[in-house]
């Protein structure tokens, strides 16, 4: 939608104003995240740019906040907990979620709408309500303050994302392929792993990444369900921001931004691959 040569002055002005406006909105979206990255290399314990940094003086920059992050046992324990909790929760949500998504995409499912509404609800119900309910209920059944309590809670929160992405991939799935496989003598399990799974794999993986990031970033539920032994990275950040805000948070934030960029890139590649596989886009 480039500007035609016959555009009037008014149209030209509007065209450029609109572009500038959109640029400002994009700036609003990205700037807060981008600003964290240079600030994390601050040599001082300040949360703003020092004069040395603005002059690009090498003395103004340092890796001390990163050293603090990797040297501090509290942060290391939090990182360890996050790494222990998120993958297990992801495996539970992906395995159960994929199975259910395949079931939901069958042509005849009784009460499909209601089931779907229940399965998506962990995404819609405010986290504080989920957290409160789990806090009361898990302490009744002895799961409160345990590793498995947090894992189960996070698995439940990740499920809607798996369901959404996998059912979306299955919409374009050609069911005559599974029938053909069965016709040639494959049993349902072989058909699933040899025919269906490779085709829906991109959807499954991106659903898994969504579930992973949900658990990895989650803070409300883990605060209520977990105990100090399950303190995760976001929890540690939350207490850090609440009580005494230390610049180490900037280093942690930068590392998390890098992880998000990697995850986003993977999901985008998978989405394009999936669309190409199913012939939905030419690229």
């Amino acid at each position, binding site marked *: 939608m480039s500007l035609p040569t016959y555009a009037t002055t008014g149209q030209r002005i509007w065209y450029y104003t609109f572009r500038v406006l959109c640029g400002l909105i*994009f700036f609003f979206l990205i700037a807060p995240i981008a*600003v*964290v990255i240079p600030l994390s290399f601050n040599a001082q314990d300040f949360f703003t740019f020092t004069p040395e940094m603005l002059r690009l003086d090498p003395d103004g920059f340092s890796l001390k906040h990163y050293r603090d992050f990797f040297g501090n046992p509290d942060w290391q324990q939090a990182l360890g907990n996050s790494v222990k909790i998120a993958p297990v929760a992801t495996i539970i949500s992906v395995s159960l979620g994929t199975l*259910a998504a395949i079931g939901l995409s069958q042509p005849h499912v009784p009460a499909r709408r209601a089931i779907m509404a229940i399965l998506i609800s962990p995404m819609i119900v405010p986290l504080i309500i989920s957290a409160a309910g789990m806090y009361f209920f898990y302490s009744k059944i002895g799961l409160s303050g345990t590793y498995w309590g947090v894992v189960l809670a996070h698995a439940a929160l990740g499920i809607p994302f798996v369901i959404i*992405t996998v059912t979306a991939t299955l919409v374009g799935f050609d069911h005559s392929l599974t029938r053909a496989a069965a016709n040639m003598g494959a049993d349902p399990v072989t058909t699933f792993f040899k025919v269906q799974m490779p085709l829906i794999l991109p959807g499954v993986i991106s659903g898994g990444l969504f579930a992973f990031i949900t658990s990895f970033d989650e803070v409300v539920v883990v605060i209520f369900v977990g105990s100090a032994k399950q303190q995760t990275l976001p929890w540690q950040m939350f207490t850090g921001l609440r009580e005494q805000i230390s610049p180490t948070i900037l280093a942690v934030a930068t590392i998390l931004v890098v992880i998000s960029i990697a995850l986003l890139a993977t999901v985008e590649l998978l989405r394009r691959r999936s669309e190409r596989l199913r012939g939905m886009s030419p690229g």
Partner: protein
Amino acid sequence: MSDASATQNGPVLAADGTPLKRSLARALRRQKMRALMLIAPLLLFILVSFILPIGDMLYRSVDNKIVQNILPRTVVALADWDSTSGELPSEAVYTALAADMKEAAAAKEHTKVGVRLNYEKPGVASAFRKAGRRAKKFDLEAGGPWKEAFLKIDKKWGDTEVWRTIQTYSPPVTAGYFLNAVDMRVGVDGAEMRPERERIYMALLKRTLWMSLLITGSCILLAYPVAWLLANLPMRSANMLMILVLLPFWTSLLVRTSAWKILLQQQGVINDLLVWVGLVPDDARLQIINNQFGTIVAMTHILLPFMILPMYSVMQTINPSYLRAAKSLGATNWTAFWRVYFPQTVPGIGAGSILVFILAIGYYITPALVGGTKGTFISNQIAFHISTSLNWGLAAALGAILLVVVLVLYWAYDKIVGIDNVKLG
């Protein structure tokens, strides 16, 4: 030819000789069963790990067995007392209370019921605490008269209001927490409003809804031009710009909130910039955090992708020739936009707005970190009652109210957009 005559006479048969209709019905049933078998494990998992806990929480908002469990005799004895008579309960009630208190004090449970009743009538907790301290030494056979004994321990035991509170909250189920959550209480003539200075929750609920509306509104304003640009650019550049929308979406909520906390501080980047430009004097830096403004800015930023994505997917499907047709028929730019383009984008605006609004009213982390005291939401009050004041019944009642609001919106979203059509990037 004999086959054809057979089908004319009897029902159509399948290969194995059963009537085709029954055979098809069985196949369909088997298909349904298989689908359900695939869904069952997950459904069970969600029911146990998610729906049941929420049900348990909802039950907690009306559960009031504590008074009956700790003061069983008193509750029975007090049942016949007429609270409107203005007279204190009979000696029998005090005797029952003495017996209950002795038992409760031995089990160290008397303070629990005191705390419970204190939510309804401030001051009761201390009366229970004092009585409990003496109750261990009560001699139930020789002691008494109990009325005088209790009045000596604390004057409150001679207050009919205290007794009325115990009587009102003796049934195992109560609406008290819900009334409390909407700033009401059980008075002499049924439900009544609390005094002006004790009303906080309705104001908080209104503030939560109002701020969520403001956030949704600012998201619409910011998302509309961006979605339009993305939908009308060539595929390649649109994909590039899309990354700028998706990156915040994928970035940790804590990272984005801490970024805003750092930017908006009085010694933060934005204030520094304003001082440097000269818009703001150094000694009068703007207070833009720990208030409503901070919450609205940070949450608009956090929820903006949820508005852009549905708008974008709707705008992508709008044929640009409609706009051209409108213009060639003589419409001005504005008329063509407002009468032709805008109505077609309304479904996208609706979908995005409901989604953003649902997410906004339940937010906890961001308001807790950048909201100060004036910019907090109802979720923060729920968290406060769970972890600090320990009034779990009230927390559950507030949660139930919030849940109802969210579920109504969820239902509307399902009707309008369909939950199957939620897109993630």
